[in-house]
């Protein structure tokens, strides 16, 4: 008896980190391959400035993907992220234009920090609606978030009457400047959006690996009934992940509209697919319970570096579509071929 398990556990220990690398290998190798190929094809690709620019593009998808990862770990899916992004951008835009209080006859210009807080609160609320529909009313996640996706988009359109808020820089005399800081500035040469992404990724990583909430999330994604019986507050976990996903979508919306210094109601269309793709390329299973922030980040970078690279080397846009699809499949395929049996579960 003893020797059977011993052998296994003995082997398990040393191969631990290597095993993880291999599991996330597909995304990692795909990323290396992408960087190598494009660097070879274009002298402009392998430069610090390009990597920073690309990273700032990845930031948007990356932030969404972190939220999506939480939801997917929980065994759900969130189709509404793109819409929440747009809605948040639009609301931030509206707030920057000033809130008219007809009762008092004054126009309020909230300072930027207030705009950020309000917008994130909005994202959290919309996310919580998703969560409540799914956890309490047992609406399948796909349906609930699809519905909210339409509703949020519609509200964004209604709010702006289809138009785009253009001037988000604020005015010094109103004390609400600084909105473009998020998208434009750099700290130590690194775009703020990239720093925001890193911060979020690190926080999410810590949360998943170190906190009780992280354990609950993996547990309820792996076997909800078992988690429930063990006293994990599965409903609360569910509502929380959708809320977090909503907040992160709002953050992405703020970053995007700050980058563009404008906010339109159609921003972020189909970003949910990109975010999901990043999560899945990063090795997470759509059935829940499996996935890491590291993998998701790799997945987001694979997608972002690939699409930017194709633009830089000047591939025609149709071919870009074809290549994107092919690389997505290949990135995941590599894994299946190389580590065959190891991936049964995903």
């Amino acid at each position: 008896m003893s020797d059977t398990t011993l052998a296994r556990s003995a082997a398990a220990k040393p191969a631990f980190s290597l095993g993880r690398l291999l599991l996330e290998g597909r995304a990692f190798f795909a990323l290396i391959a992408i960087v190598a190929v494009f660097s070879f094809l274009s002298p402009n690709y392998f430069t610090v400035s390009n990597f920073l620019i690309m990273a700032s593009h990845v930031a948007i998808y990356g932030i969404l993907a972190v939220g999506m990862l939480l939801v997917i770990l929980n065994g759900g899916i969130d189709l509404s992220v793109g819409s929440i992004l747009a809605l948040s951008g639009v609301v931030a835009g509206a707030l920057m234009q000033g809130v008219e209080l007809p009762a008092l006859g004054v126009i309020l210009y909230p300072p930027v920090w207030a705009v950020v807080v309000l917008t994130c609160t909005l994202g959290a609320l919309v996310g919580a609606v998703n969560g409540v529909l799914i956890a309490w009313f047992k609406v399948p996640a796909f349906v609930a978030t699809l519905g909210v996706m339409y509703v949020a988009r519609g509200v964004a359109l209604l709010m702006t009457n289809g138009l785009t808020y253009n001037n988000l820089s604020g005015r010094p005399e109103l004390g609400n400047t600084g909105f473009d800081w998020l998208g434009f500035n750099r700290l130590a040469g690194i775009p703020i959006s990239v720093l925001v992404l890193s911060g979020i990724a690190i926080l999410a990583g810590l949360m998943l690996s170190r906190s009780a909430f992280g354990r609950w999330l993996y547990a309820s994604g792996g076997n909800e009934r078992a988690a429930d019986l063990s006293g994990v507050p599965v409903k609360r976990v569910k509502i929380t992940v959708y809320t977090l996903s909503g907040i992160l979508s709002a953050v992405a919306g703020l970053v995007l509209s700050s980058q563009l210094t404008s906010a339109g109601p159609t921003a972020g269309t189909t970003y949910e697919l990109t975010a999901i793709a990043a999560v899945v390329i990063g090795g997470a299973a759509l059935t829940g319970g499996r996935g890491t922030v590291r993998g998701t980040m790799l997945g987001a970078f694979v997608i972002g570096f690939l699409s930017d690279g194709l633009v830089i080397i000047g591939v025609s846009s149709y071919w870009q579509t074809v290549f994107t699809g092919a690389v997505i499949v290949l990135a995941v395929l590599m894994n299946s071929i190389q580590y065959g049996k190891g991936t049964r579960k995903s």
Partner: protein
Amino acid sequence: MSAQFQSGARPQTDPRLGEVVLAARNVAKSYGNVHALKGVNFDIHRGQVTTLFGENGAGKSTLMKILSGVIQPTSGEIVLDGLPVSFGNSTEARDRGISIIHQELSLAPNLSVRDNIFMGREIMGASGVDFAEEERQCRKLMAELEEEIDPLTPVEDLRLGQQQIVEIARALSVDSRILIMDEPTSALSATEVEVLFKVIRDLTSKGVSIVYISHHLEEALQITDHAVVLRDGTMTAYAPRAEIDLEWIVRNMVGENYDLGSPPEGHALGAVALSVRDLTVPDPKGADYNVVDRLSLDIRAGEVVCIYGLMGAGRTELLETVAGRLRASGGEVVLEGREISHLSIAERIARGLALVPEDRQRDGLVQTMSVGENLSLASIASFTRGLFTRRKAERALIDASIREVTVKTSGPAAAIGSLSGGNQQKVVIGKMLATKPRVIMLDEPSRGIDIGAKAEVFKLLAEEAKRGLAVVYSTSEVGECLSIAHRIIVMHKGRISAEFDSTVSKEKIMAASGESVAA
């Protein structure tokens, strides 16, 4: 003297028996028009082991779920320390010191052993979860259970028995006053059961009260202080340890005596039906040893062969390889004279080779389908004419199966999940028997089925053997080896370590398996 009770009557409690810590009073539970419990009184005594016996579907698990707050009774009340209580969920019950080991495993396969044990009760340190402390406690628990399971192994990489150990360890890790064990040993071998019993004795001496459910009657008798028999949702008998024996239990449980049978006789064994030659199977998880190691075995038509072995002996891998689920790295499998190593599972089934898998939840049942659809799943071809299935033929096949393996169900349209554990097991057996196999392999077929059903299943197999069916079954209970098997094969580390005929003693079998003959 044993006492017999009318339905709903209260058991007499002998003051000697110790104080009642938890009790069910007139508890009833109905699911729609299924009355799982019909007013049951049940007492748990401080520091003692109460064993609950009953056929599959008698309502044992239901009662335990009510006592541990997993489900709420339709009527009746629960009394804790003399005061009525009601638990909204299992966490509330756990907070009051009641914990339960579920009959069906409830582990998150993606998490490690450590994380499963502390699921929902993480130990918090200064910077988040204190993994080091959790791991330490986890190792201690494993040491207590004399298991070498690494706390960091993902549960999905563990064998079923090991998963059950984790489940036990989790319940032990909560310092509870009342511990309910619903068939904790169904996937354990004798050695591990011994260890568990040691732990239980230890706990009772500390004043912990235990409820124990098992279909391994002899085993349960070793540990019990009180026995309660449940039948069709009512309590039919109660007696303290001194007054019960195997015969008493069986009489009260199934109302008649039982016998696991003897090897079928009076028919000549036919030609070799299944022949395994030098079969070698590498470890499916990639370790560098062979789980089945150049094993050869012949089984003749009409013969019943039992494979005994400890957990990890490689029985499951042997049977799964023969069935086509796993790939062998060497050797051949010959069915009725034809080499079948290259065939798919479906083709092997079509040629008459069927496997009843070990883990019914994972490999046996389709939870989304009804009882009937599960029963007919493996033999669709037999009622398909042209493009379409024929309803009548299917219905006849399902009805026949339900009768043959005596599944207790409200009907073929019932959801498979509504059956009691043992009845689910019978469905899996019935499904494979419905393919009219020439050779049937059953991996631990008696797991979780009651003594009556076990006898019926063995009787059925014996009868089929008389008609020329070759039967191979694996078991971890020595008693079952000595029932209908003509031949007993003991496996150890992927090889056959001994072969006996049906006259061998239990001790010899256990010795050959590498098991200490302690019990």
